[in-house]
């Protein structure tokens, strides 16, 4: 306020130099009644200006300053928050990455174990199948051999029966009967 008044006084030529000018006469400002009126006008104007313009302007400026400061503070806080969030996110990302790595490693290990187990199971199953097939084949061979033997023996005996039936004469029957009677002793 004082600074404003000083500026106004300077502009109006009030002060020692002004007094000198009036002493010399014929200056810009004449020290008379009108000067007081002008001073009063000026003071009134100044008062009005201060009241209506300067104070609201200062208030507005303060408000703007506060707003800007607040915005700055908010921006600072937001930046800090963002930084913190970024750091948190980075930490989370790092943790997630580590966890993913761990999961991946576990999954790989489990997959390898499962693969090993499956391969072993498949090998065992294949072994069993081979053994079963081998046994079955051996059984088939045995059965085929037995059937072949049976067929051969049936055929041989059938042929023998036919030949014997054709060729047996009475003296052969008598000899067979005698042989059989002779074998009765062995029963006792």
């Amino acid at each position, binding site marked *: 306020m004082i600074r404003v008044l000083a500026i106004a006084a300077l502009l109006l030529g009030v002060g020692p130099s002004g007094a000198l000018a009036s002493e010399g006469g014929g200056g810009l400002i004449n020290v008379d009644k009108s000067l007081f009126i002008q001073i009063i006008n000026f003071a009134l104007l100044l008062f009005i200006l201060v009241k209506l313009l300067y104070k609201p302007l200062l208030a507005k400026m303060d408000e703007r300053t506060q707003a800007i400061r607040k915005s700055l503070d908010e921006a600072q806080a937001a930046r800090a928050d963002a930084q913190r969030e970024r750091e948190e996110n980075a930490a989370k990302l790092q943790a997630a990455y580590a966890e993913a790595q761990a999961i991946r490693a576990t999954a790989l290990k489990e997959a390898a174990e499962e693969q090993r187990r499956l391969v072993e199971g498949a090998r065992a199953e294949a072994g069993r199948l081979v053994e079963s097939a081998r046994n079955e084949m051996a059984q088939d061979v045995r059965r085929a*051999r*037995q059937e072949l*033997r*049976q067929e*051969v*023996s*049936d055929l*041989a*005996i059938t042929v*023998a*029966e036919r030949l*014997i*039936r054709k060729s*047996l004469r*009475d003296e*052969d*029957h*008598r000899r*067979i*009967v*005698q*042989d*059989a*009677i002779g*074998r*009765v*002793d062995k*029963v*006792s």
Partner: protein
Amino acid sequence: MRAHEGTARRYAKALFELARGSGAAEAVGQELGQVAAVYAADARAHETLTRPWIKPEDRRGVAAAIAQRMGGRKLVQDFLGLVAERGRADHLPEIIAAYQGLVDADLGRARAQVRTAVALTDGEKQQLSAKLERALGKRIILEERVDATLLGGFIAQVGSLILDGSLDGQLARMRQRLARG
């Protein structure tokens, strides 16, 4: 069949006790066999004796009349009448077999059923009987039956003992040996 045999054994045993008491066990067996042969040969008589809807007393009368006509003694007539009356006429073959077994056992002899490819000569029969008697320690009655399905030799059965002297038996044994390898 087992039930038949059990029933037949009970009837045979009862008849055998009565016949042995009168000292005619073997004769009764022969008469029984003759009458049973008539029953088997005469279809009408067989039907009359085995049909359940014919009155028991009528069956008894018919059976006794046939036995009388065949010259069977009173015991045989009564027994056959009883068997027919009780509806057991179809058991007669088993009854006779069981009776023969009891008579044979009582007389210390055994019956040899001989199935043979060709009829045995008298000499062969005597030889076979003698061998069997020596082997079993019993007198043997040979019952021969010619079986044309046999290749050669004979199969003799005495009770549960079977003597296979046939070519068929030898071939069967050879077949088993061949099949076994």
